């Protein structure tokens, strides 16, 4: 059990560095972080489910300017570790309760981790900057370069310790609540876990704004329901995913080869 918490925190802490400090390959996004930790702890499906829900819940949080959003990758690492620290619940009816509670707990823990990161930027990194200025005055290049790794190491230690402590602190109370739940509350938490994807989809809409294009949401919803009622859910899925993938490919082509869509589209700039 301690081993799972340790492994989840070690990997989660490293992946969380990708959020801002290093790379930004998006391996820190819950959608990626969840299955990676799930794979490590022996259940990819659980990691994937937790990652997908937390990805939606955090998709409206942007790292723009001086903003420090909640730490979604640490939240994912903590939730996945808590659920997979003791797998005895996974085959039982209490699984959904456990998932729901762990996601909620880690969601708030992610907000706390974001606050801590903000403190890092206002205090710790300013201290590093002062050291950098003093080295710069003397032209000491190797000392300047070393600061990068010191800062990275300190931030990793912060990520790891926070994830490890949060997983251990959250594990026992959540297990106790799940074990001691009265019969009526089992249905409640089951519902909560199952409606979390809808809460997440609603949060994700924030990232795209709400204006007159918003009407495409009910169009997609009712069209898919209609196709589903005809027993052709597969067609709806294929159309939607193919159009989304096609649009992504179009963007890549446009940048790489300078293609315009429609041909001669530059003339229509501002026409939308």
């Amino acid at each position, binding site marked *: 059990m301690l081993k799972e918490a340790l492994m989840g925190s070690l990997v989660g802490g490293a992946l969380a560095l990708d959020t801002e*400090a*290093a790379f*930004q390959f*998006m391996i820190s996004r819950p*959608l990626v972080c969840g*299955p990676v930790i799930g794979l490590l702890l022996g259940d*990819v499906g659980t990691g*994937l*489910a937790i990652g*997908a829900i937390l990805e*939606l819940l*955090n998709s*409206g949080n*942007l790292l723009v300017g001086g903003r420090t959003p909640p730490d979604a990758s640490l939240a994912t690492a903590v939730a996945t570790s808590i659920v997979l620290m003791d797998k005895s619940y996974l085959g039982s009816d209490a699984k959904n309760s456990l998932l729901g509670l762990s996601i909620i707990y880690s*969601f*708030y823990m992610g907000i706390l981790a974001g606050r801590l990161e903000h403190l890092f930027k*206002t205090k710790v990194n300013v201290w590093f*900057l002062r050291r950098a*200025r003093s*080295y*710069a*005055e*003397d*032209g000491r*290049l190797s000392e*300047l*370069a070393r600061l*990068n790794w010191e800062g*990275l190491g300190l931030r990793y230690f912060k990520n790891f310790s926070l994830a490890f402590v949060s997983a251990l602190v959250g594990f026992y109370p959540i297990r106790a609540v799940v074990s001691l739940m009265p019969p*009526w*509350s089992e*249905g*409640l938490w089951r*519902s909560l876990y*199952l*409606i979390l994807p*809808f*809460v997440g989809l*609603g949060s994700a809409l*924030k990232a*795209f*704004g709400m204006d007159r*294009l918003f009407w495409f949401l009910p*169009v*997609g*919803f*009712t*069209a898919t*329901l209609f196709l*589903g009622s005809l027993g052709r859910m597969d067609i*709806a*899925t294929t159309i939607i*995913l193919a*159009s*989304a993938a096609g*649009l992504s490919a179009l*963007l*890549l082509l*446009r940048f790489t080869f300078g293609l315009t869509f429609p041909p001669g589209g530059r003339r229509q*700039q501002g026409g939308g």
Partner: protein
Amino acid sequence: VDGGSKAVDDRKSVLRKWELFKVVCRAFFIQNLWSFERMQAYGFLYCLLPVIKRLYTDREGRASACRRHLEAFNTHPYLASFILGVSIAREESHARGDEPDVSQVPSVKSSMMGPIAGVGDNLFWVSLRPFLALLGVSVVLLNWDAPQYGLLGPMVFLALYNLLHLYVRWVCMVGGYRGDIKVVERLRSLNHLRIVRALRVTSYLLVGAVAALKVGTVGAGGRGLPKAALAFALMVSIAAASRIKATPAKMMALVSLLCLAGGYLGWVASF
């Protein structure tokens, strides 16, 4: 050449490909040690250290270059490569003796960082990442009971995103070094109104379709309609709440309390 530094040699290109490669690798750490005092200043200087080491051999020359690049700086981390390229070209030109005055380099950087941040934030943070993440999550939600297929979601997300991300980093670095402003123009063209609209329309359709697929079939006689309507109303309410500045933390607390109350009253949703 100011500060007592001297040009390394008389060749047209003083820098070797090795130094440029090191800058490209170090650019992945540009946001490390981001502080509210000078933002990406340290990260920018860290990226340029191999260049400064190669171009300036004396202590005062190195100190002077370090001071120039430790001024407050903040832009989009991927597109910062363009400004890095421009700065490298200026420093190289200075070290060769072609450009005696480099005191305006910090102001050149400042003048570029705002517009470039605008292009990068809109393209990557506001449009591309949420859209591709949504595409990935959709694959997961549609394969909720089959994680072996659901894994395609994160893979597609990472592959599509990083293909563009890494390409942009490389092109910006080379373009900035060669003084090719067309690179930024090409990136700006990706923010074309039509493309942003197409991304948003597809995202709305995708969210609507995924929500409907999660609800499942309505069934004969529309028995499942109340459930579908409830799911849709919940989703729109959450989206609308964000407009009145309801934070995700508050919304999550409210949903949990509603479930608590609903569970106590015997309501059980069965999505």
